[in-house]
């Protein structure tokens, strides 16, 4: 595949899941097993294609868009169907494809009530197109459509297959995100008219930036900020997250943490920063402060949780705080760290949700106190995996999490865009509090390990046969477990591929 001409590969990879969703709906619901296998096959083919794209991507030109497609689409409003990928898009696109495949494999296990794998898997495939499209769309309208497209399937996933409070959680998820999207759309319109280039092209608008008055930049950034900050979520826009995660079915949680949240941070990096650099510079200190509040606050909330899944959900608030801290640094190292943190969190927390889901299947509870310890005795392999992923999540060097955290703090010590001169002291404070956040993070994870893994099983479980990790779980987990280690030891896998693209991007900031 020639990355200069093979735009079709991206189009196919993008719409294959959508077509697959259509195909699934045509199958009779009684063909339960076949439907599940078909979903695995569709996502596997899609992943193979994405893997081929990844392999033929020209890493020496990672800063430029490759596999591009750019054709007129809705000519009346100048919207174009514009796809492409650079070193920033590639890892996220890859992760989306991989996680969906793993989720499809995992779904060969029984679904939570009401079953209906046909509907579930169709929604998942629809979701995949939305998620993947967000990362390769280079037209604001197209981006927006992909961005919003994810809402509907996730809404139904939570609302139909979720836990007891699923109605509440799904509506909350939908309304929060939609609320932000409205402002984002208004901001997009403002950008379009202010630029006056009759174009929604992200690349073109980035090249033109900065345009408009300071007032325009400020208000437009605020609009875009609301849209993305709710998605990330940045504190204090997070309350939808714990509910959505806790109620969502396992696969929903995995994709939510693994990909959906990343659309917010990706939006900041791809759209908000390069198109509205002046607004970004004005908002950066505030973003930094909110990010660090999120880190400390998320960790504190984790300490108070009694439900494993809700704890992991809150841990996302903290980890995404590190990503936002990297963004707030407004320099190359910060963006690099943010992008790494994005992927690392997707893999690690996605994996944690898989584990939490399987834990629930076995114990039929997620209450830490009811599980009561001794998991390492009951299910040794499972216990080891749980410890491994928890330790990765607390940012241990040698595993993926570290390369999102340390570099983010390191980058924040000397923020770009002249922020170091005016806000140097503030940023030093941010670094210190972020570092304190890592202690709290270690605290809640070790405490969780202690209360779930260690000690003797309680009477309730002592004689209960609990199955250790099953074959299908191994298949859907091994890639993530391996990636956690691989990215930890070879951070170049991400940093290297992203470097040129990040340099380009920070060039737009006028650093």
């Amino acid at each position, binding site marked *: 595949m020639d990355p200069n001409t093979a735009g079709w590969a991206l189009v196919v990879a993008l719409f294959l899941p959508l077509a697959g969703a259509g195909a699934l709906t045509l199958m009779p619901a009684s063909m339960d097993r076949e439907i599940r296998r078909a979903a695995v096959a569709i996502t596997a083919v899609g992943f193979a294609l994405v893997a081929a794209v990844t392999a033929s991507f020209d890493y020496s030109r990672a800063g430029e868009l490759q596999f591009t497609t750019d054709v007129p689409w809705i000519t009346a409003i100048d919207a174009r169907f514009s796809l492409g990928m650079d070193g920033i898009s590639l890892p996220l696109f890859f992760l989306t494809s991989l996680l969906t495949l793993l989720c499809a494999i995992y779904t060969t296990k029984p679904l939570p009530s009401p079953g209906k794998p046909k509907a579930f898997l169709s929604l998942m495939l629809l979701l995949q197109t939305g998620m993947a499209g967000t990362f390769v769309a280079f037209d604001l309208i197209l981006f927006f459509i992909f961005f919003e497209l994810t809402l509907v399937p996730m809404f139904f996933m939570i609302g139909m297959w979720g836990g007891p409070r699923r109605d509440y959680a799904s509506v909350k998820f939908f309304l929060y995100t939609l609320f932000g999207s409205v402002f984002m759309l208004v901001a997009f319109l403002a950008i379009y008219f202010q630029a006056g280039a009759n174009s929604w092209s992200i690349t073109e608008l980035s090249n033109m930036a900065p345009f408009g008055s300071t007032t325009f930049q400020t208000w437009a950034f605020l609009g875009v900020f609301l849209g993305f900050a709710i998605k990330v979520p940045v504190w*204090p826009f997070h309350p939808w997250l714990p509910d959505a995660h806790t109620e969502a079915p396992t696969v929903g949680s995995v994709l939510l943490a693994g990909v959906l949240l990343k659309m917010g941070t990706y939006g900041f990096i791809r759209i908000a920063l390069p198109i509205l650099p002046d607004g970004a510079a004005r908002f950066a200190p505030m973003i930094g402060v909110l990010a660090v509040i999120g880190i400390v606050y998320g960790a504190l*909330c984790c*300490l108070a949780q009694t439900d494993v899944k809700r704890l992991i959900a809150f841990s996302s608030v903290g980890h995404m705080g590190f990503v936002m801290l990297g963004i707030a640094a407004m320099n190359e190292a910060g963006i*690099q760290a943010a992008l790494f943190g994005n992927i690392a969190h997707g893999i690690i927390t996605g994996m944690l949700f898989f584990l939490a889901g399987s834990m629930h299947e076995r114990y039929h509870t997620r209450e830490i106190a009811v599980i009561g310890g001794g998991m390492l005795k009951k299910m040794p392999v499972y216990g080891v995996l749980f410890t491994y992923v928890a330790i990765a999540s607390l940012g241990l060097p040698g595993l993926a999490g570290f390369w999102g955290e340390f*570099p983010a703090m390191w980058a924040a010590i000397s923020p770009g865009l002249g922020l170091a001169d005016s806000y140097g002291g503030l940023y030093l404070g941010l670094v210190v509090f972020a570092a304190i956040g890592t202690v709290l993070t270690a605290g809640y994870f070790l405490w969780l390990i202690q209360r779930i893994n260690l000690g003797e099983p309680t009477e309730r479980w002592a004689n209960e046969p609990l199955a250790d990790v099953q074959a299908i779980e191994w298949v859907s987990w091994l890639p993530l477990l391996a990636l956690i280690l691989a990215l930890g030891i070879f951070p170049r896998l991400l940093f290297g591929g992203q470097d040129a693209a990040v340099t380009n991007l920070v060039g737009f900031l006028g650093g």
Partner: protein
Amino acid sequence: MDALLEYTWVVVALPLLSAVLITAVGKQLPGKGSEIGIAALGLSWLLAIGIAWQTFVASPVEPLERSVDWTPLGGGFVFELGMLVDGLTAVMLLLVTTVSFMVHVYSREYMQGEPRYTYFFAMLGLFTFSMLLLVVANNLLLAVIGWELVGLCSYLLIGFYWEGKSNQDAGNKAFLTTKFGDVGLIVGVIVLSAGMFGLTDTPFNILEINEAAVAGQLSTTTIVLGMLLIFLGCMSKSGQMPLHVWLPDAMAGPTPVSALIHAATMVTAGVFLLARLYPVVAQNQAVMATIAIFGVLTLFFGGLLALVQDDLKKILAYSTISQLGYMVAAIGVGGYAASIFHLFTHGFFKALLFLGAGSLIHAVHSNNISDMGGMAKAMPHTFWTFIVGSLALAGFPLTAGFFSKDEILIAGEIWAGAGFFTGSLVYWVGLAAAFVTTFYMARACFLIFAGENRSHHTPHESGKLMLAPLMVLAVLSVAAGYLLSPFSPEQPNFETWLATPLLPAETTFPFTDEGTAAASGLVGDGVLAAGTSLAAAGDGPVKVLHGVPTWHPDLLAIVLVLFSLAVFLAYRFYGKGLPERDPTLSMGRFTDVLVAKYGFDDFGYRYIVVPVRDKLSAAATYSSNVLIDGMVAGVGRATKNAAMTTYRVVDQQVIDGGINGAAFSAAWWSDKLKRIQSGDVQKYAGVLVAGTILLVLAFAAAR
């Protein structure tokens, strides 16, 4: 001759390989993986000896640095995977591999029959790898990685018996206390590297940072802030008060682990890092004074706590804290070589004492010295090796501990001579603490070895695999001292070994004035790392800070008197076995304070752990669930109410009502109006006339 040094990475890689292999196939092997560990560490040890030899005989050698660019970090900055091999590295390599090898051999017998035997050896390998990684790192980020990994291994091994709650708690306490210190380490490393941003693409590189500091390219803020923060990390890792609280609890781990990790190697990481960055430390008086003061406090008050312990491992743990205090204090008074020398000798004799303790614990199935007694006869080899270790720890003349501790005291004396009061502090408090050390070790030795057997077991001597390491370490606990003693040649000796020849000649501490510095001997070739310039090394004798130690009869006399006094007192109290009332436990308030460990543990739990874990966290969750969520829910309710109002009032009443009203009124009016349309022509004409008149009048008025 550098050929061997090029392979330093192999020393580091072998233990990792061992850990991986043991995990993969250990359980299938007859020795359950221990043979892999022992073989790997044996090879590592041999290679480390070669490296140590090469760097020693030719010392001072130029540092060998080898690195590959491991990953870009953005902004053109690069993270290197690299090694820095100089005398300091070689010393640490030798110490770590020696102790680790001994502990591997010892554990093969000691851990026999324990659960998770294979896992234990895999963890030993992983730990050794991590520690060596920290030691050879050529940049601070890599050092941080090693640092965090040793912390993980420490956590996993302290909680090795994870079925018990107290062991789990000890592991958590260790990890979190050191992690708290790591806030300092991480931010400090970040601050230092930020000072290097304009100077290099590799801002973590240790040699470059050291050179920049000496060349005055780092601002005072960078140095003071960076080093004080890093020192916070060193305090937690190296058990400096008040961040020492985790170390005694860490004794919950298996005893060989205590010997390797919590006595000889990992806990010295903080001291090592200070030494690695010594040229930066030496730039600022405030930094050095802070380091010295915390060291002095720790060496004295840490040692006192050992007086009231019954658990042998805890006695040794507090003595470790105290000895680490000496090392840290030495750094703070310009005793770079003295500090590392003590680190080196202490590693051997403390590992020896812990392994000896393990041998005793095996025999009597108790950690408590009150349960021992009369062990000298039953366990002759454990006895004599333990006594050698104790003498070295107490600084008895001609043992390794004597030479290294004296170097620290002398460093304090020289520092005092240059007009710094911290020098006198180190000298006098150091001497006082030596008395305390001798007393509690003598107490332990009498209670263990003299008198009658108080245990409920028939003690037996340990097997060969446990005794051999004890003997090797016992020899080293004496022999290591002669690397820097009045018997040493001018070159090579331990000080030339540690010298860093990269620094410019004729330097001195920037904060000393030249006259005083010259008078007190603080000026020398590359004095900032006890070093020397290569030029000087080429022709004529090497000039280093202190040079070959000379006898100090005054100091020797004081040391001997204190030693005899302490042993005599201990003999009077404990020579006949366990007294009815232990004198150290009958000192009233003083005992209470010591037993309460000065209240640090209690304070930390009550005012840090509980508020954060139970109060702050609850408050945060409350604010999330109730306040923020409540606000949003409030907005939601308000919107819903507004919607209902819109519907009920505006839509249903005003608009709909209006429209209906309009309809009703139309009907009413039409009812009235229809009466006008009566068909009565006269009435129409009358109205017409009246209207015309009205209009005319209106126009007239308008004019």
